[in-house]
């Protein structure tokens, strides 16, 4: 474990020193993962390309600010940058959709969480991507970034209640997709 720690730390230090090979190692190790993170937020291919590029640029430019805090901290740090870059892009490209969150506040009764066991990751990923931008953003921040509704409200400039209701809608929409998928695979709920 110690060796692994050193290796991850070493990659960051080599990036800091401007080591070209470290850049390629980083890309080889994390580019696909970071693309997966960004793709949860960004559905347009061109936008996704820009966001991944910006994410990598930010990582390289700010690697000096990275503080190694143990196993996996580099990947975690990089994925936070990916989320930030995704949100920046959404704010630029989908301002309208995010703004609409403010008045689209009709709440729905919350449905039970459907079983996820039989859903392959790529299918779940695709289902999330199919959610409308606003719902998806709130949902991702809540589920994958562990944000509270208050935090989401602050990040997106919306009300806390709005975040709650948006999340509820997103969750129900996703639940329907999951249920439909499970039924299509003839898996009992």
């Amino acid at each position, binding site marked *: 474990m110690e060796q692994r720690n050193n*290796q991850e730390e070493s990659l960051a230090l080599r990036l800091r020193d401007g080591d070209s090979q470290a850049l390629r190692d980083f890309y080889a190790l994390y580019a696909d993962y970071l693309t997966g993170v960004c793709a949860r937020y960004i559905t347009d291919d061109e936008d996704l390309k820009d966001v991944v590029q910006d994410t990598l640029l930010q990582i390289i430019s700010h690697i000096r600010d990275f503080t190694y805090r143990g196993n996996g901290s580099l990947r975690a740090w990089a994925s936070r940058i990916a989320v930030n870059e995704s949100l920046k892009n959404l704010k630029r490209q989908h301002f309208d959709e995010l703004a609409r969150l403010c008045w689209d506040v009709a709440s729905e009764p919350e449905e039970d969480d459907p079983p996820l066991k039989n*859903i392959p990751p790529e299918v779940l990923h695709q289902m999330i991507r199919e959610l409308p931008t606003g719902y998806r953003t709130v949902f991702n921040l809540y*589920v994958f970034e562990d944000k509270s509704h208050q935090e989401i409200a602050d990040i997106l400039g919306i009300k806390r209640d709005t975040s709650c209701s948006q999340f509820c809608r997103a969750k129900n929409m996703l639940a329907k997709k999951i249920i439909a998928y499970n039924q299509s695979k003839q898996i009992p709920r």
Partner: protein
Amino acid sequence: MKEDSRKEMQEKLANYCQAAPDVSWEALEKALAANKAAASPRREMPLWRIQVAAAAVILLIAGIGWRMVISPDPVTKTTSRSTAKSEFMALDLEPLPEQHAVVQTTTTPVHSRALLAVKQHIEEQAAVAAVTPSETVTETPSEKTQQQPADRSVEQRPYQEQTQFASRNLHHRRSTGSKLTAKVYMGNTMSGSSNASAITPMMAAATPIGTFSDALSNSVELMFNQTSDIEQHVSHHQPLRFGVSLRYQLSERWSVESGLTYSLLSSDITRRSNNFNYHTDQKLTYVGIPVNVNYLLWSNRHFSVYGSAGTMVEKMVHGHQTTQSYVGGKATTAPSEHVAIRPLQWSFSGAAGVEYKIDRVLSFYAEPGLSYHVDNHSEVPTYYQDKPLGFNLNMGLRFNFSRK
């Protein structure tokens, strides 16, 4: 949503990957170059390089001076000149063999068991999270991480490369009956190599979730298996070495020698990961100072057999690498980049030498032996670290001078 469901979903997509889009390497390299420029103070010509150069000059002057004092006759002087000429001819005539001494492929399926840390307390995260609730989404990561101590800025780590040796040697040496001998030899280190991938442990080090908890004790820890294949292919070219050495005869049979060696290494490194691979052509130059003790075992008019043992310290003085990236079939060549290996490389060797004296001045020899390279704790595995004990075959020409 229940907490269990949230965690299940996080877990499900914790390692989700999607093929990365084409990126502009030019822009990335530019950002990287800025990092390098910021780190440049420690890339200035270091003192040791000046010292090595000074030592080389002193040794050469001393050697030539010695030669002139010992052999003041014009015949020897002529020979001395021709010696120098022959040395360089010998070097020029020896092409670097194209075949690869070692070709090794490592496929590393990484079954890493990484810790999945899921945070229970959102409040805790606010301290670490990049997406802070009070700030807008437009802030940069540096702004977000400013609160973290930048303690790493003073740390310096030697950056090392995958190395392999191609080297030649020039030695001054003395045969029985003369005080000083110059020799030219080809070094041919036949040594296997394994190349541990630096990537593997990093894959293992990755936490499988986008968020990071620095308080693992407060986290739910889940073990899972992460599998990824990264293939690394390293081929080492035939190692060669040349150098200049002075040999001093202590007695009829014993002699000591020292000098300078110049070694040139080149290696091809290919790494692959999903749709991405890159090929690096790396060339490293070492300057080394050997110290050897030789013992003459047997000799006649044409042949002599001797044993040799000694140590050598080497320093990488110049290195560069050129990398080509292939993403989705598209090739991009990065500008050539300088590399540095800071720690010294010590080695010990023992060899048996056979010498054929072509005439009074010129002889041909072969020295098979073993070399042991001490681990210099470089972070990136080197050729020497992978295979510390290697077989050596040094062959070459030796020029003998006597006082008559």
